[in-house]
Each structure stands twice: as structure tokens, then as C-alpha cells.
């Protein structure tokens, strides 16, 4: 089966990013920046997978690849499937090893260790026996990046694209049909990015201003609202302070003793072309961080 769409949709997770055709979707992820896994499925039978592990020093990627292929071979033998595999130094990607194997699926991939960030990445594209894996695998693997050049990581899945400083670690994610939420933390600083689908249905019952105050972060908070702009759309800009007594007291103390900002800032906007509502909320980082993050959101 031929696959005609060019890889134009960016997928980013924990500092790893790659481009896939627009009709592919992230269907699985696990782990963190140190070690993790990402899976992206096509509407058909093609699958792109990336595994990464952070190393402190240079590792023998040939040995890692042998271990991986041995594991795959053992699994194939258990299923009584013939396994054939090949490894060669990559001509296209410096310092990488390319591999391809056939068991019950056709697989093409590469392994490499980034000399800058020391991350070891195994990326592969697999498909059924009648899928043209080689071409699409080359196109996808060619876009693979294991770190960013400017210190901002791209987080992109299911059409949500946002960039954050790499020190922000993902602490909570909710991926549901029609709702996405990513919560990040760096020390005491917090960032929450949310996206709702079916905005036309939602905004029949709610105004954007009322909807903006729905996220849990704005409940039990004294909030000031203002009109603004975000990504070319009219937005509700929020800033407020938590009023829950314990949180309020702790924030006040930290404000006085450690000079930490106590305010939360947020922007909520309706992207009409995409039929989605976006919300970015930053807590205790200052308003500039909010604007910097909002500017990186790709909403339509």
C-alpha cells in the first residue's frame, strides 16, 4: 500500500520531535525525559515508534541495537515467525546505525546517540508486508530531533502544538477525545495548557469569559479579567491569586521571604478556524512567561 501524504504534522514529546503525515495520530506515550516511548499510528497499518534513554556518557549503540534486535527475534521465534534483519552504518545520519528487519511486520529504523545531549534514540517505522515502508520511514526519520537548539521543547500531539522551556517537566497529562491537558512544573513554577474541541457546541451554552474560569486552577481564586489578543484571536486575559486560606498564606509568606511571584496569569481564546478553545495558565512565573508560551501555540 502506498502512502501519499507528506510528513507535515509535528509531533513532540519530552524533547523528542518528528514530523508525520497529517492523518497520523499519537496513540501512546510513556516515561519521562530520561527514558520513554512514543507511538504514532497512521489510519492504516503503518506505525512510527520512538524510544529514548538518557545516557551520561557515550554508549555502544551497536550493542544496544543488537540487544534490541535479539529481543525482537526471540519474540518472533515464540510466535513461530521467521525473522530476518540487517544493520548498516547510516549514510544519511551521521553516527547513526540503520536497521531493517522482517518478522510479522516490515520495519525500518535507526539508532543514534546525540553527541550534545547524550540521548540514545531508537526510532522505527513499521508496516504490513504490502506497505511501502522504506519511503515513508526515510521521510519521517529524516525529521527526527532528540533535543532542541534553543532550550525550548516542542510538545505536540493531536493537533496541539506548544513550546516550553526544557526545564519544565510534564507532571500530569490528560488526553481525552475533545479535551487535552498538559501540566508542567519547574520548581515552584507551574504551567497548564488545555484545549477543548467542539467549541461551537460549548459556546452556545457558555460565554468564553465564563468558560475561561472553568479550569480548576481558577476556582477559589480572586480573578481579574480583561480583554486581549492571543494568536490573532480575541482572548480573555486572567490574573488572580488563590484565596484558599492555606495556599494564600503560604504564597504570601513565600512572596515576602523568597520574593516569589504569587499571581497566576492566564489566557483563554477561541480559535474559530480550528473550532477549539485554548487555555494557557502560568502560576508564579510572571506575566511575560505567559505571553512567551502563548506565542508558541499553533492553533490553526
Amino acid at each position, binding site marked *: 500500500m502506498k502512502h501519499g501524504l507528506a510528513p507535515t504534522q509535528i509531533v513532540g514529546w519530552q524533547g523528542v520531535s518528528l514530523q508525520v503525515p497529517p*492523518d497520523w*495520530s*499519537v*496513540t501512546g506515550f510513556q516515561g519521562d525525559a530520561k527514558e520513554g516511548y512514543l507511538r504514532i*499510528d497512521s*489510519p492504516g497499518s503503518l506505525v512510527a515508534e520512538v524510544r529514548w534513554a538518557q545516557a551520561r556518557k557515550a554508549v555502544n549503540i551497536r550493542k544496544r541495537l543488537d540487544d534490541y534486535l535479539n529481543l525482537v527475534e526471540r519474540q518472533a521465534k515464540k510466535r513461530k515467525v521467521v525473522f530476518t534483519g540487517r544493520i548498516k552504518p547510516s549514510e544519511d545520519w551521521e553516527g547513526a546505525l540503520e536497521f531493517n528487519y522482517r518478522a510479522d511486520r516490515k520495519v525500518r529504523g535507526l539508532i543514534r546517540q546525540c553527541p550534545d545531549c547524550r540521548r540514545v534514540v531508537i526510532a522505527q517505522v513499521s508496516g504490513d508486508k504490502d506497505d511501502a515502508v522504506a519511503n515513508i520511514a526515510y521521510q519521517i526519520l529524516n525529521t527526527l530531533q532528540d533535543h532542541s537548539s534553543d532550550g525550548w521543547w516542542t510538545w505536540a500531539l*493531536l*493537533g496541539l502544538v506548544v513550546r516550553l522551556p526544557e526545564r519544565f517537566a510534564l507532571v500530569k497529562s490528560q488526553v481525552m*477525545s*475533545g479535551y487535552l491537558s498538559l501540566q508542567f512544573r519547574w520548581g515552584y513554577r507551574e504551567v497548564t495548557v488545555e484545549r477543548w*474541541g*467542539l467549541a461551537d*457546541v460549548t459556546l*452556545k451554552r457558555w460565554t468564553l469569559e465564563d468558560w475561561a474560569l472553568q479550569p480548576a486552577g481558577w476556582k477559589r481564586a480572586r480573578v481579574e479579567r480583561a480583554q486581549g489578543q492571543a494568536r490573532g484571536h480575541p482572548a480573555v486575559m486572567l490574573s488572580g491569586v488563590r484565596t484558599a486560606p492555606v495556599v494564600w498564606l503560604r504564597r504570601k509568606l513565600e512572596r515576602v521571604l523568597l520574593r516569589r511571584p504569587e499571581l497566576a496569569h492566564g489566557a483563554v481564546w477561541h480559535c474559530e*478556524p*480550528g*473550532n*477549539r478553545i485554548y487555555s494557557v495558565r502560568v502560576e508564579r512565573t510572571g506575566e511575560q512567561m505567559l505571553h512567551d508560551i502563548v506565542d508558541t501555540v499553533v492553533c490553526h
Partner: protein
Amino acid sequence: MGLRDLLGKFIPAVKPKPVLSRQEALTARPLRNPLIEWEPMDDGELVLKVPVEQRSLVIRWAIAAFRLPPVRQIQLDEVGAAVWDLCDGEHTVESIVQEMCKRTRMSRREVEASVSMFLKMLADRRLVAFIRGGKKKA
């Protein structure tokens, strides 16, 4: 494995539930239960009028004694109503997914998950059945 599947292994009369692959599920054609009437509302929503099964004597007595309505109403929002409209036995699940992708401008994977869950819920309540194989409307 459920009890039904386990028993089905040993007792031929107990048939295990058929397990559909994703591809088979996408080519199935949902069909509305002909006993169900529905009424569109002004805002694009829909009210389904589902007759209450009166096979049991107790239920018949309860309906008469408490003057319960013989139909129960289920309200679908406009997205649910759009999917309900497409459950005509002609459209496949795949074509419903594609249509809803266009209408909602959500990603295919999100729509596929929601539509599948919604159709499963309708099927569990016996509001739709699935026709497998045969002609398809893409």
C-alpha cells in the same frame, strides 16, 4: 476473558461475543432500531423515544400503578444527533467518522474514539445494531 467467553469454550450453546478487528468495526454499518421514534429540537438536539419493554408482569404492573410513561426519552446533543442521523444502515462507521471529522474539525483519532464509544453505548442499549459485510457507502 468474561464468563460468557469462558463458558463458550466448553458449552457450544453459549456463544462468545464476536470480537471485531478495528478494520471490521470500521466497515460495519450501524442501523437504528425501527421501534424507536425521535423528535428533532430547535437547537439541533434530538429526543429519542424508546418504548419500555413490557414483557415482565412486574414492569407492566409498575407502569400501570405509578402511571409511568410507556416510553423513556433520551436526549442527544447536536453531535450525537448528527451521528444518529447517519445510522441508516447505509453509512459505514468509517464514513460516519469521516463525516464527523469534517463537521467537528477534530482530529480523526479523537473522532474515531468518540464515535466508537457512542455507537457502542447505543448498541448496548439496543438502540442500534450493526450490519457486517455487504454493500458499503464510503
